């Protein structure tokens, strides 16, 4: 589903190269964990996948279902089924959460040539999804993410993911700022989305999240490259021994 080949990307503003020849393949139905120390390029990778214009791809290719996405803007990528759950979801004053959800869902439906949702159908879907994440509907009447706690913001991200039903989900440090109860709710929300036609990329610094979202593959990112890939036991090894050993081994 996702094929990244020799990807090089830099910060548009100052030209600093962050991703330096990254290769990664994620198949449909797979949950892939990307792990790495701070500064290894994990968040940059997520932004490059989502199409943030602060980063420039200078070399290589990102293929999604066999087609390059590099020329697509963030909205087009999202409409094609790519979803990024942000590490730090933006607070947007003045935009009511419900209104935003409706606009986003209908924008994607429109891009796929589908009719907009009726209001009752929309409300039904939001209520159902919010219920499974233990979210209060009153919260959704507030401006988007404004005044939400860290945990509430992460839940709101997963809520959006459930409603938009993307094909490729990229979760950037979804565990940061979550207590154990919130972590479980969020992980359950992600696990419910596991399906043979969907790929999930979980970006995380710690193994903790992977106890709840068990990955099929684990990839270690260091200095903008995948330096080692393996199964979930690789995550255990990292937890036990830290990154130093693997970095040394790769060097």
């Amino acid at each position: 589903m996702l094929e990244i080949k020799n990807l090089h990307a830099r910060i548009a503003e100052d030209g600093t190269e962050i991703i330096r020849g990254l290769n990664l393949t994620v198949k449909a139905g797979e949950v892939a964990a990307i792990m790495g120390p701070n500064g290894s390029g994990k968040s940059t990778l997520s932004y490059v996948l989502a199409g943030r214009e602060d980063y420039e791809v200078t070399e290589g290719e990102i293929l999604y279902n066999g087609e390059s996405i590099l020329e697509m803007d963030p909205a087009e990528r999202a409409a094609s089924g790519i979803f990024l759950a942000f590490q730090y979801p933006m607070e947007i004053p003045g935009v009511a959460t419900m209104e935003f959800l409706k606009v986003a869902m209908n924008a994607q439906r429109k891009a796929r040539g589908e009719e907009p949702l009726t209001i009752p159908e929309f409300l039904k879907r939001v209520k159902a999804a919010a219920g499974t994440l233990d979210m209060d509907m009153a919260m959704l009447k507030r401006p988007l993410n404004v005044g939400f706690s860290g945990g509430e913001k992460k839940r709101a991200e997963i809520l959006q993911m459930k409603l938009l039903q993307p094909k490729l989900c990229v979760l950037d440090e979804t565990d940061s700022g979550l207590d154990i109860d919130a972590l479980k709710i969020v992980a359950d929300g992600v696990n419910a989305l596991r399906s043979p036609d969907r790929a999930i990329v979980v970006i995380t610094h710690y193994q903790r999240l992977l106890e709840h979202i068990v990955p099929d593959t684990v990839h270690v990112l260091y200095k903008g490259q995948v330096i080692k890939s393996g199964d979930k036991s690789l995550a255990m090894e990292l937890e036990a021994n830290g990154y130093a050993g693997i970095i040394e081994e790769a060097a």
Partner: protein
Amino acid sequence: MNMHAIPQRTSAETALIDAFGERLSLLPGDGEIMVRRDEAIERLKAGLPTKRVESWHYTDLRRLLTAVPQYDGSAKAEVLSPILEGSAVLPVLNGVAATNKLPTLDGVTIQPLAEKLADGSFAAAALDLYGNDDAVGALNTAFVADGYFVDIAAGTELATPLELQNVQAGGQTHVRFPVRIGKGARVTVLERQAGEGTALASSVSQLLVGDDAEVLWLIEQEQADTATHLAQFKASLGKNAKLTLFVMNTGGKLVRQEIIVDAAGEGSVFTLRGVNLLAGDTHTDVTMVLDHSVPHTTSTEVVRYVITDKAQGVFQGRINVAQKAQKTDAKMACNTLLLSDDGEFSVKPELEIFADDVQCGHGATVTEINHDHLFYLMARGVDEKTARGLLVKAFVAEVIEELEDEALVDALEARIETWFATHG
């Protein structure tokens, strides 16, 4: 009003002076009122203010007022359906009070201003100019022909809003709304400034807000983009009076809205909220002078601008705190979203404080669309144009949603939607 030597009159200045000669015999009122009119036209003869006059620095009226249309007595304006359903509408159609359409309300005395000026019961001092640079006041005092005098009795609680509807049909109109609000009265007044054609409109609203009264006054200016709209809102607040003024500018080619408020009664509270949507080749200036004259008065001002195309926006906010006005609490903020490279915005906040135990502050920001926010919305599949629209609307919705009246919020948001459909 302008102490500099003016070498030659502009065509607009000449047209105004000629118009006064032609209109003089038709203008209502004599004696003291006529004296005021003469004084006012003398001010205009000295020349319209230029950028060298401090309070007109960003709106060089002499340069910007390029044409003065003739009076057009044959042009007809129609009464508009009110902003809020069920409002009592007081229409002024192309400068003339439509007296056959007047509502009757308990506790409210309504008299067409032409009648009041003519019968000698109008206190001429109300036509006095404000300071030395009062071009809007001078224009209006010289030419004012009609409007409504409204007297709301003490204790009146109006269940329905009052809509003062000033509708242009082209040509010149000069209208005034003196409104007296009695002690403890509670009212909502919508001042609607609308119309079509190449108009020169001057409009002055002057309020006397009695002790303990609570007033929500909304100015919705939606003139044609060929119109010059020069307006003044003056108010004096009694003890513990509360005045909330909401100004929304979404039209006009050249607009100056002056706001002159005196928090003259202890415990009085003034709130100003403004939304200005500017597009095309237009110029909109909101200028406020607020006096905190006595102790224990409060004011907050939040004024927002959205500027696109080649539009020019101006906000001048001056807060004067008198020496005896201890415990004044005044906060002013002006935020602008600049959406185009050719748009311009000028802001001048001024605090003049003579008391020592006060809390006063002001802040001004000029920004473009927040790129992080834009990326977030787009990352959820919202296309760029829609995402920008959402963010711009959000920027002004924050101010509008402060109005607690849901029907009013809906009506204003509908107006904003209409503006975006044309200019967004």
